[in-house]
């Protein structure tokens, strides 16, 4: 064991020393001028267009009280539902931090609140805080994300500013349902993650 530890330490030092010896003279880190990327565009429309482009579906609602009726309409056959949104009463399976993720293998639908949305690429940012079990948004058959129209940002630069103060555990940008084009470049929706994604914009 000691031998392995020593070898490990040696590689670390050897790598760092090789870097020190071989690296070029220090080059500056550029300051990013965000002005270059500003645009006056309709955020909601752009977001919806991009979400469609990546295979997702957007529905605009007036009020959080409308979400359950809409979800029932869109997913009439879903019975095993995990809801992580307090405004939704559709949940039939409750989860907590101790829930075994493997037990979620056959759930039909997960309903999760998105923290913010990105107009330029149709992505929604969600973190572990929003869905409790990390595997949930991936293992579910279908996924509904709910986002406020006030939380749609122009592009990724603004988004990283907005999430810079978060407690960093696990977070993910989700842009559309899971997909693949690995068989002859034919796009097939539903690879390993959720096979459909609906974003409710409230």
């Amino acid at each position, binding site marked *: 064991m000691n031998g392995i530890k020593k070898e490990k330490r040696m590689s670390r030092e050897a790598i760092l020393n090789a870097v020190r010896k071989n690296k070029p003279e220090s080059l500056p880190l550029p300051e990013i001028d965000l002005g270059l990327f500003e645009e006056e565009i309709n955020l909601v429309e752009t977001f919806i267009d991009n979400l469609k482009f990546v295979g997702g579906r957007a529905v605009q609602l007036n009020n959080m009280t409308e979400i359950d009726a809409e979800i029932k309409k869109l997913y009439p056959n879903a019975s095993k539902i995990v809801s992580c949104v307090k405004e939704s009463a559709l949940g039939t399976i409750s989860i907590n931090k101790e829930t075994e993720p493997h037990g979620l293998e056959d759930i039909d639908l997960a309903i999760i609140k998105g923290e913010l949305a990105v107009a*330029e690429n149709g992505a929604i940012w969600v973190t572990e805080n929003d869905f409790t079990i*990390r*595997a949930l948004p991936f293992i579910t058959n279908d996924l509904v994300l709910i986002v406020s129209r006030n939380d749609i940002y122009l592009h*990724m630069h603004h988004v990283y500013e907005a999430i810079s103060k978060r407690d*960093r555990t696990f977070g993910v*940008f989700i*842009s559309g349902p899971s997909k*693949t084009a690995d068989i002859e*470049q034919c796009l097939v929706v539903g690879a390993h993650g959720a096979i459909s994604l609906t974003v409710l914009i409230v």
Partner: protein
Amino acid sequence: MAHADEAAIFNKDEAKVDWHDKALWFVRQKRDKSAHKVKGWEELRNYASAIKANVLSNLDSYLLQFEENAQKNGVTVHWAANAEEHNKIVHSILQKHNAKKIVKSKSMLTEECHLNPHLEAHGIEVIDTDLGERIVQLAQEPPSHIVLPAIHKKKEEVDVLFQEHLGTKPCDGDPEYLTAEARKHLRNKFIKADAAITGVNFAIADTGGFVVCTNEGNADMGAHLAKVHIACMGMEKLIPQEKHLGIFLRLLGRSATGQPITTYSSHFNKPEPGKEMHIVIVDNGRTEQLSREDFRASLHCIRCGACMNTCPIYRRSGGHSYKSTIPGPIGSILSPGIDLKKHSSLPFASTLCGSCSDVCPVKINIHEQLYKWRQVIVKDVPQPVVKKTALKMAGSVLANTKMYHFAGKSARFMLKHMPRFVIYSKLNAWGHARDLPEVKNDNFDEWYKKRKKNE
């Protein structure tokens, strides 16, 4: 075998080559469409290039900063000087957990290190979970493209493979059916896996976190279900700050497939309570490449595959003809750095048209580096006569500054002005079956003006 001979084998099935050529060109066009929609695209590329240059020039301190922050997050950090050490480290972690069933998402690094055979020799099952990678794994082949691993396979071939290995029904290569069957097959593997291995797209020095991008969700299915997550990264994957992801994630998906971003961009910082997260930082020749002033910038690469999709040689010779883990233009400058003799024909598998450099999101001067490798190689490695002639011609153009600037390093120039026997010689098998792209002057002018503007 030299690249040209390998390419000749690929070119035997002309219909397939045509399909391959067109399919990749289509991806290139999607990339263009997507890039043109972004305000400040060229500035994004400039920033990305400058950030990567800054990283390489301070790589030691960024590595230490990353290590410290990752450790604070409860992640175990390992260092591997070479492929062998990388494989040993991964195996020792698996052994500690008595892990026998492993799921792996796409990682060119573990391909480079030949991790799978190492683990399999120790009785461990490793399942590649990216659909394309699973296809080539079942076919016992390496990936032929870094983003589209099975681009060389026709759907009928996948059909037969799946019948044999997954027990599917004959389906005339129906992609929907085959994908659905793969989903079922791999779900089962995810559920039963003891540990998950993923690659790393970006590692962030100032947070100690790392980002993994997939379209299928396979990295997440693996990492969140298994008790142990091992992330393997080449040391050049570092970026200084989290906000720089804004630059790189805007570039990566668009350059790769024309998507505005990959479906999942997963940000890992801390392991879940009761689980383990490991990061293996690998050198394996990278510090040596760092020492080569002319080739250092190849370490900027974010593995988007755009240079492959656009390359007229790659598209008509297939990824396997390069006989290196990373094929295509970027592979042709990385591989000679690892084994000059073995890969000495690769820098010649290029028209030096510069299309690769034009699309590269981190602005690597790929075609210039290819030319520089040629100079190194003709000095050190004996060359076939025809290549020498081609090289001489290229050399006389490139050595004459005026002419060089006029030609703008363009393939179009080469195609127009090089004698037919050089372009279509026996050795250049990729030009054998059919004429290379027609040379249109307006394209050239447009390209030339654009290039001038960017200078």
